[in-house]
C-alpha cells in the first residue's frame, strides 16, 4: 500500500467512526468558541499578531547567533546543552544522561518533540520506565496510542473510554465515569510517580537566549512537578524555539494561551534558568537541554517555506480546519496533524513519505486566518501539493514529484493545451457536448459519492452566439 492509499484508508476508517466524529466535533466547536471570546477587538488581535510574527521571524533570521547565545548563557547558568541532528541522536543523548545518573524511572511532561523522536519507546527498550504525566498523555499512553491533537492529546476519547482504560489498568480503584472523579483517580496514581521518579523529561515552549531561560506553559502542574521534584531534569526542544529577549515573552504567551485553549493565561508559566543552587532545598541538581534539528535547518533554506518554523504549536489551525474536525488527528498518521502537519511533515520527512498529506485540504484558508504568527499555511500547503506532483522545479524539499501520475499529468497537459488554443478548445467543448452519452457513468472515486456531471447540449460559446452576444 502506498502512502496515498494508506492515508485514504485511515480517513475512511475515521469517517465511519461515529463516536470519534462526535468526540471531535463537540470538542472543536467549544474550543473555537472560547478562542473567539478571547479576541473581542479585531484591531488589537491584528496588532498582537503583527508583533508576535515579527518576534518569531527575528528569531529565525538570527537563529544561529541566538542558539549560540542561548547555549553560552545556559552553560553559564549551569544548564548543560546538547545538540542532536536527528531523533536517534537525541534519544541516545537522553538515554546516556539517564544511565549516567542511574535513573530507572522517568516522569514526563508533554513534549511533541519527544513524539517526533519516539523517545518513550526508545527508553523503554533500554529498560527505563517512562510515565506520561499530563492527563491526556497518560490516557493515551495507557491506550498505547499517539496524540490526536498537539495540545489536547486525548481529545478523541470520551469519558466512558477513559473510565474503561483506568479500570483495566487500576482495577483496585473504584470505577467511575464522572470526570472530576476520574481526574482525582489520575491524581492519586500519578502523585506516587512524581514522588518517586529519578528524572523528569519535558518539552520547552520558549527558550530565551538573553537570560538562558526555559519556559513551559501548562495548566495541570505536571510540567512543574516533572521539572522540580526529581533530581534530574532533561528538556528537549526543536532548534526553532529559541527567542531573543525576555520582553518577547508577554505577547507570545498571551497569544499562545488565547489561541490554543481560549484562556487569557494558563494556570502555570514556569521559567527555569538554573539547576538547584547552593543553599536551595529543592529543584533538580542537574538540568540538560537537548536541541533537536531533525530537518528544521533545511526548511529554513527556502524563503517562503521557512515561515513554517514560526509555529508556536497552539493548535488553532487544526481546531479551525474542516478536514481535521471531520477525520481527527490519527487519520493523518503523522506526528503533527492538521494544517501545520500538512505544511511541516512533508518538509521534515520528504514528499515521497508524507506528500499525500497535502491533499487533506479544501484550500478554505481558515488556518491562515487564525494562525497567531501569521504562517501562510494555505500557500505553503498549496505549494507542497504542487511540488509533490511536479518534478520540474528546483526545491529544497526532498521527494518532489513523488506523487506524479503519468495519466494525471497528461490530463492536465491536455487541459493546458486546450486553454491556450481557441481552436482546440472549441473542438473539445463541441465534442464534449455532442458525445456526452459516451462518457461512462462510473468515473472512479469521483462518482463514489457523486453523480456523473452531464454536459449541456450546446457549449457556452454557441449559446452566447445564438443570443447575439459578440464573440471575444
Amino acid at each position, binding site marked *: 500500500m502506498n502512502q496515498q492509499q494508506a492515508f485514504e484508508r485511515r480517513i475512511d476508517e475515521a469517517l465511519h467512526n461515529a463516536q470519534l466524529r462526535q468526540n471531535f466535533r463537540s*470538542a472543536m466547536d467549544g*474550543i473555537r468558541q472560547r478562542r473567539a471570546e478571547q479576541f473581542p477587538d479585531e484591531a488589537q488581535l491584528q*496588532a498582537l499578531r503583527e*508583533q508576535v*510574527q*515579527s518576534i518569531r*521571524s*527575528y528569531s529565525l533570521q*538570527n*537563529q*544561529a547567533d541566538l542558539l*549560540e547565545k542561548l547555549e553560552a548563557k545556559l552553560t553559564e547558568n549551569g544548564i548543560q546543552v546538547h*545538540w542532536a*541532528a536527528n531523533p536517534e541522536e537525541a534519544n541516545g543523548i537522553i538515554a546516556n544522561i539517564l544511565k549516567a545518573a542511574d535513573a530507572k524511572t522517568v516522569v514526563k511532561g508533554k513534549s511533541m518533540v519527544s513524539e517526533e523522536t519516539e523517545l518513550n519507546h526508545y527508553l523503554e527498550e533500554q529498560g527505563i520506565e517512562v510515565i506520561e*504525566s499530563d492527563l*491526556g498523555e497518560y*490516557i493515551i499512553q495507557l491506550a498505547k496510542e499517539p496524540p490526536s491533537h498537539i495540545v*489536547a492529546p*486525548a481529545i478523541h*476519547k*470520551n469519558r466512558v473510554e477513559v473510565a474503561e482504560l483506568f479500570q483495566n489498568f487500576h482495577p483496585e480503584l473504584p470505577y467511575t465515569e464522572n*470526570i*472530576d472523579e*476520574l*481526574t*482525582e483517580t489520575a*491524581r492519586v496514581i*500519578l502523585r*506516587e510517580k*512524581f*514522588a518517586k521518579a529519578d528524572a523528569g523529561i519535558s518539552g520547552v515552549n520558549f527558550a530565551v537566549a538573553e*537570560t538562558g531561560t526555559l519556559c513551559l506553559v501548562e*495548566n*495541570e*502542574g*505536571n510540567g512543574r*512537578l516533572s521539572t522540580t521534584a526529581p533530581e534530574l531534569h532533561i528538556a528537549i526542544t526543536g*532548534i526553532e524555539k529559541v527567542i*531573543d529577549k525576555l*520582553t*518577547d515573552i508577554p*505577547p507570545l504567551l498571551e497569544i499562545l494561551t488565547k489561541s490554543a485553549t481560549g484562556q*487569557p*493565561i494558563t*494556570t*502555570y508559566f*514556569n*521559567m527555569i*534558568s*538554573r539547576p538547584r*543552587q547552593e543553599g*536551595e*532545598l*529543592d*529543584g533538580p541538581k542537574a538540568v540538560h537541554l537537548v*536541541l533537536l534539528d531533525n530537518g528544521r*535547518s533545511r526548511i*529554513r*533554506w527556502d524563503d517562503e517555506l*521557512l515561515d513554517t518554523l514560526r509555529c508556536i504549536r497552539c493548535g488553532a489551525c487544526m481546531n479551525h480546519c474542516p478536514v481535521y474536525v471531520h477525520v481527527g488527528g490519527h487519520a493523518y498518521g503523522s506526528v503533527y496533524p492538521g494544517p501545520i502537519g500538512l505544511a511541516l511533515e512533508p518538509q521534515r520527512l520528504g514528499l515521497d513519505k508524507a506528500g499525500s498529506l497535502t491533499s487533506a485540504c479544501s484550500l478554505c484558508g481558515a488556518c491562515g486566518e487564525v494562525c497567531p504568527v501569521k504562517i501562510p499555511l494555505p500557500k505553503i500547503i498549496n505549494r507542497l501539493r504542487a511540488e509533490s506532483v511536479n518534478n520540474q522545479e528546483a526545491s529544497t524539499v526532498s521527494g518532489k514529484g513523488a506523487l506524479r501520475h503519468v495519466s494525471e499529468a497528461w490530463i492536465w497537459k491536455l487541459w493546458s493545451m486546450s486553454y491556450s488554443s481557441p481552436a482546440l478548445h472549441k473542438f473539445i467543448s463541441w465534442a464534449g457536448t455532442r458525445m456526452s452519452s459516451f462518457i461512462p457513468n462510473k468515473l472512479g472515486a469521483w462518482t463514489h459519492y457523486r453523480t456523473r456531471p452531464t454536459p449541456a447540449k450546446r457549449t457556452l460559446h454557441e449559446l452566447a452566439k445564438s443570443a447575439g452576444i459578440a464573440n471575444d
Partner: protein
Amino acid sequence: MTDSRAHILNRLRHHELTPQAKAPVYQKPLGLSKAQRIKSFTEKQQAVRGEVVLLNGSWTDWMDKHFKDAHLLIGTGELGDQASDLKNAKAITHYDQPIESWKPDLFEQIDVSITTSHAGLAESGTLILKPTPQEPRLMSLVPPAHVAILDANRLYENFAELMSAEDWSEMPTNLLLISGPSKTADIEQTLAYGIHGPKRLITLIVNHD
C-alpha cells in the same frame, strides 16, 4: 555531539536571511488604579476558581480561623518566624531541609502551604512567585492547598509592565506565574480542578496605603 553542533550551525548559516527589525512593542492602554487592579485580579482569579481574600487582620489569625487542625507547611523567612502565632494548626512543618530528606512526607502529610508572592498581575489574575532557599519551589506545588500572601502595592497591570519596572537581566533559578489552582480539560474538554498541583489557591491580599 560537537559534530552535530557544528553541522546544525553550518546548515543554519548556509542560508543567511536579511535581518529585519522587530515590530514595535504592542502596548495595551495602562492606567488602572490600585482599587481597579485589586478588582481585576480578584475577578480573574475567581473565574478559574481561585479564592481571593482582602486581609483585615494578620494572616495567622486568618489561618487559625479557616484551616483548623491542618498540617501547615511554612518557609524559614519572615512568615516562618510569624508562624509561632498560629494557635489552631494540627502541626507546622518548616521547610528547612533538602527535599531528599523528607520527600514522602511532603507528598503525603502536608495539607496547606503558606508563601509570600513577588508580585501580582491584575489583567490576568496572576501571582508571580520567586522561590528562594527560605521558600522553596515545591511549596506552591505539592500541598493540596496553597495560601499566597500578596501586597496590593505589588499588583502590576500585566507581565510586560512588571518586566519593565524591574531589572530582570539575571533570572532566578525558577520564576513562576500562577493563575489559579491546577486544572485540566483533557477529558472531553471538560474543566476539572486539582489534577496535579494545588486543588485550592487562596490569595490573601494585604492592602496598606
